[in-house]
């Protein structure tokens, strides 16, 4: 009985409801991770796969950073759990009869978002390092299309992390009186700049996810022998 109450207070009912969207989401997530684990892609001709650095580290950190991200929270609460699935009052399904606990039960873990941000910031430089490695792979400096894609991926991830709400809080979200604080006006302008990025956080979140998947598939394509690389240095 006590265990049941404990479970009730911990597990939000949206995780227990029969919900094909949730099931599909879980299937997608598990198969994605499974593919990465079973068929790891490490490196091809100097291109280090963005999922490998090493995979065991990147996948959990990036995964949890994404799952606790405010942008994705909006998306999966809306489109996976249907709380609510649309803002339009005439089109969204009635969920009056469904139990709802918001971010009070299990989803409280989302409050640890900032720690995944810290970890994410620690692994960010490796993506630039991988770009550098790919440039000098042949012994001399060669710019190939793949390198550019690796750079794009690194920049997308940086923009996503730099526009994070938890970072915003760290920079100055908790400060009410910059006038009273050390280097207040500089910090406030930093906060204002970050706020502009923050306004596009949802875009960066999705863009960086699509980029990383695309780059991974691109490298797998290369490894499978597809002729899709290009030496840009030769074109110039």
């Amino acid at each position, binding site marked *: 009985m006590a265990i049941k109450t404990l479970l009730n207070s911990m597990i939000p009912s949206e995780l227990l409801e029969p919900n094909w969207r949730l099931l599909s989401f879980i299937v997608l997530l598990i198969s994605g991770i499974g593919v990465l684990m079973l068929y790891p892609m490490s490196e091809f001709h100097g291109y280090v796969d963005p999922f490998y650095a090493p995979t065991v580290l990147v996948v959990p950190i990036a995964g949890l950073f994404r799952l606790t991200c405010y942008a994705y929270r909006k998306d999966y609460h809306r489109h996976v759990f249907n709380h609510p699935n649309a*803002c339009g*009052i005439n089109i969204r399904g009635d*969920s009056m009869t469904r139990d709802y606990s918001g971010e009070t039960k299990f989803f409280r873990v989302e409050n640890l978002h900032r720690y995944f941000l810290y970890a994410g910031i620690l692994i960010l430089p490796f993506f630039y390092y991988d770009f550098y490695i790919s440039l000098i792979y042949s012994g001399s400096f060669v710019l190939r299309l793949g390198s550019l894609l690796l750079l794009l991926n690194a920049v997308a991830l940086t923009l996503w992390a730099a526009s994070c709400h*938890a970072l*915003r809080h760290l920079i100055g*979200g908790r400060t*009410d*009186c910059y006038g009273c604080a050390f280097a207040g006006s500089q910090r406030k302008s930093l906060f204002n700049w970050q706020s502009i990025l923050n*306004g596009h956080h949802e875009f960066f979140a999705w863009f960086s996810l699509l980029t990383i998947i695309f780059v991974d598939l691109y490298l797998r394509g290369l490894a499978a022998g597809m002729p899709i690389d290009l030496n840009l240095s030769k074109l110039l």
Partner: protein
Amino acid sequence: MKELTINIFRMDPAVDNAGKYKKFNVPVQEGMVVLDAVRYVQENIDPSLALRWNCKAARCGSCSAEINGRPRLMCKTRVDMLEEEITVSPIRAYPLIKDLVTDVSNNYEIERRIPAFRPKKGAAQPFLINQIDVTRSQEFRRCIECFLCQDVCHVIREHNTNYIGPRHAIKVASLDMHPMDGIDRSPMLNGDLGLGFCNITKCCQEVCPEGIKITDNAIIPEKERAVDYKYDPILRLARRLRRGSSAK
């Protein structure tokens, strides 16, 4: 003259509590807004049609309604932006009084529960405040209390929780972010005032006629403040150590 068709929700408790839509034809004027059409009905066809309006300039927040299923101000919604047939209903998150009028009085009860501004101890008066410190709080002070965000919020509308809703969350934020305010309301907001029930799905931000970034600039920053005092293990430890050392 060109006419438009408007379906207005009618409910008179003297008749029954169910209510139904009634169709009216209204002549179209250039630049007409939905409020013009509803007022045309009220002034010329049925003077007993209950509606609230006041400034007709999107500054008082009285004429909130659900227009074609979306919470909007009637005075700010041009009919030429909508489909041929317009449907207007009251903001249903609140108990219906009559026709387009609902009982929004519980908002004032909520505001009573939010501690009012109290100057920091020792703040010199008159206050000296840097302009960079007024902008964040001022964004939320643009709120015209139309309660459209409360209406669209699925937590308020569909679930029975203690969450006070977006309008009041930005009220708390506007007080918390006042540079001279001496109270931290975030523990209360995340406790008794139920901010944990907000799952940041941002419909409130989408419907705000003042364009206030409710979720990004008020609710998420307040959630992050809650993390500071409640969930962040390192900050909790640091506070405990500090308290321990000061106790000695």
